[in-house]
């Protein structure tokens, strides 16, 4: 994937992909959503600290460009499967934060009616087939959804998000093989944040890049800087085109980083503070995107401020909605286990 070297471009030269592809309005919406993802997770984290949310959660703060960039070329009809670190995917695909908070608070107004929580968060109505508590669990499901798309000629594409750790599960390998064999409209998106819990890629994976695995399944393997929105979106755009054209799957490896610990019980003993600080101060995906937008005259400081404020209000309203919502009733404990027949 061509690196976007915006600083070196003479005026009027080719701009990075998204600035050629999308309207200023769409580009500002993308920034809005990236802020929405970050502030949603900060709000969830704070609610957890205050004891309003129980269990655990996996935050994707620092990975927003990856979720957003992949989803930019998608329509509402396209589908995704997500992971335990799935809040960003859910929002990028179109979910409302109020119903997500309600789910985290265990309420009936939540997307999973209080049954799923953070690890299973999904808005099926916007094409999200589920976050997943099982590493690699969603990958074959995405292939199945792509089989449906092909059989029903729906023109739909399916994205499967997963982490670097998931590439060592058998499900990953079996799924990629079938997808390629049957030329299915599915895109495998590995969000490589360097670690599966405490285990670095170097300590878990026999190849240096997850994208290298693509060769074994005869599909393109593309590496992008996952913290540069345009690069991610461009790779997604091409993979979506391929998939819709019936040319089969693509494996995209989006190199990124999670700022927070793996979950709420991580002491970060496997990485240095310097490493974390470096990513946070020098490669933050939102800061990088904002700087580009300002450089290309798409937004100014006041415009960014306005987005931040609007998002902050959306988050505060979402939390209020969640707090005010009712909890499920115990007598409904066995609901949704099987399909109700009326």
């Amino acid at each position, binding site marked *: 994937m061509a690196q976007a070297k915006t600083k070196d471009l003479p005026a009027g030269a080719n701009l990075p992909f998204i600035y050629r592809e999308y309207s200023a309005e769409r580009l500002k919406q993308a920034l809005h959503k990236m802020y929405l993802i970050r502030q949603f997770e900060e709000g969830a984290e704070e609610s957890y600290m205050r004891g309003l949310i129980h*269990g655990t959660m996996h935050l994707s703060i620092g990975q927003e460009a990856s979720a957003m960039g992949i989803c930019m070329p998608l329509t509402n009809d396209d589908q995704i499967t997500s992971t335990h670190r799935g809040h960003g995917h859910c929002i990028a695909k179109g979910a409302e934060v109020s119903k997500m908070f309600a789910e985290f608070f265990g309420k009936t107004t939540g997307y999973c009616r209080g049954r799923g929580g953070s690890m299973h968060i999904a808005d099926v109505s916007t094409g999200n087939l589920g976050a997943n508590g*099982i590493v690699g669990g969603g990958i074959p499901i995405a292939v199945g959804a792509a089989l449906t798309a092909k059989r029903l000629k729906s023109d739909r594409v399916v994205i499967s998000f997963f982490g670097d750790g998931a590439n060592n599960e058998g499900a990953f390998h079996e799924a990629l093989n079938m997808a390629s064999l049957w030329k299915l409209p599915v895109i495998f998106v590995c969000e490589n944040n360097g670690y599966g819990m405490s*285990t670095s890629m170097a300590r878990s994976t026999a190849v240096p890049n997850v994208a290298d695995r693509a060769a074994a399944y005869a599909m393109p393997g593309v590496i992008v800087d996952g913290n540069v929105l345009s690069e991610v979106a461009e790779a997604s755009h091409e993979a979506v085109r391929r998939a819709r054209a019936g040319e089969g799957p693509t494996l995209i490896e989006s190199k990124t980083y999670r700022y927070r610990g793996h979950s709420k019980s991580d002491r970060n003993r496997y990485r240095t503070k310097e490493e974390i600080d470096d990513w946070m101060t020098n490669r933050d995906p939102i800061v990088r995107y904002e700087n580009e937008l300002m450089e290309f005259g798409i937004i100014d400081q006041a415009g960014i401020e306005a987005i931040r404020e609007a998002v902050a209000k959306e988050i505060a309203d979402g939390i209020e909605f969640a707090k005010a919502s009712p909890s499920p009733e115990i007598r409904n404990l066995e609901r949704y286990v099987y399909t109700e027949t009326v």
Partner: protein
Amino acid sequence: MDQAVRELSYAQAIQEAMAIALETDERVFLMGEDIGVYGGAFQVTGDLVERFGADRVIDTPISELGGAGVAVGAAVTGLRPIFEFQFSDFATLAMEQIVNQAAKMRYMLGGAVSVPVVMRFPAGSGTGAAAQHSQSLEAWLGHVPGLKVIQPATPHDVKGMLLAAVADPDPVMIFEHKLLYKTKGPVPEGYYTVPIGKAEIRREGRDLTIVATSIMVHKALEAAKTLEAEGIDVEVVDLRTVRPMDKETVIESVKKTSRLLCVYEGVKTLGVGAEVSAMIAESEAFDFLDAPIVRLGGAETPIPYNPELEKATVPQVPDILAAARSLATGSR
């Protein structure tokens, strides 16, 4: 031998057992996801990697099926692996190696090999981790001849049973309830074993037998205290081993009390308590029963995220109290 006894947590007791096994037997090694520098998802392995090195405390990739198979292969050829699953739920990814290979290899080869592998499974609900991280699957593995399946309930037992598992020539599956990890109890220093296949009477009583497993043992004991004040004298049997089951201890207890309540966290239908009930119904204790057997097990649902629903999914002390009261006065 006089061994000093200290208060240790359940997690510390497991760690101590593994340290003793690593120290005393060169063949022993640990495998699992994030058991090294991370110390294990529940901090059970802790700093063992610093003490014994990365060759004997091995972080695996996220590959449960492959990892379990590697442990089986190493066990068959002379090593003594202790394989940690990050959550017992992930046994489902490794069922092939556990059920088709580890359990049957010795049998299929006509006794030519043994499979001395130990697998540890953090299990159970109560942590808000929802449907895929909260299951109690001991009955699944208990259904497989060739496996031994244990559910120690105390720090003392988990240390002794883990050491017994390491010494055992056959595959032993240990289900450790996550809510037990921080519970404390007396644990002797040094090496000792607690036999696999032997139940323990935790409290003697005349009126009613509660057969409980894992964390339910503690809930049953708590209920028994309340019931004592009401004049109901409860005997609590800690089953400890699901397979092979200690029938004799349970039968003798039921013959004495004539009433049986089974309490277990796994899904009620086809669960551990179903087997205990059927075993009693087939035994000489049947004629002694003064009332129908009662089972309290997990609800017929995946574990929900909402904390109130989650609690309602598995037996709690008030459920045990209510069941015991009506059983104590019920008749056939």
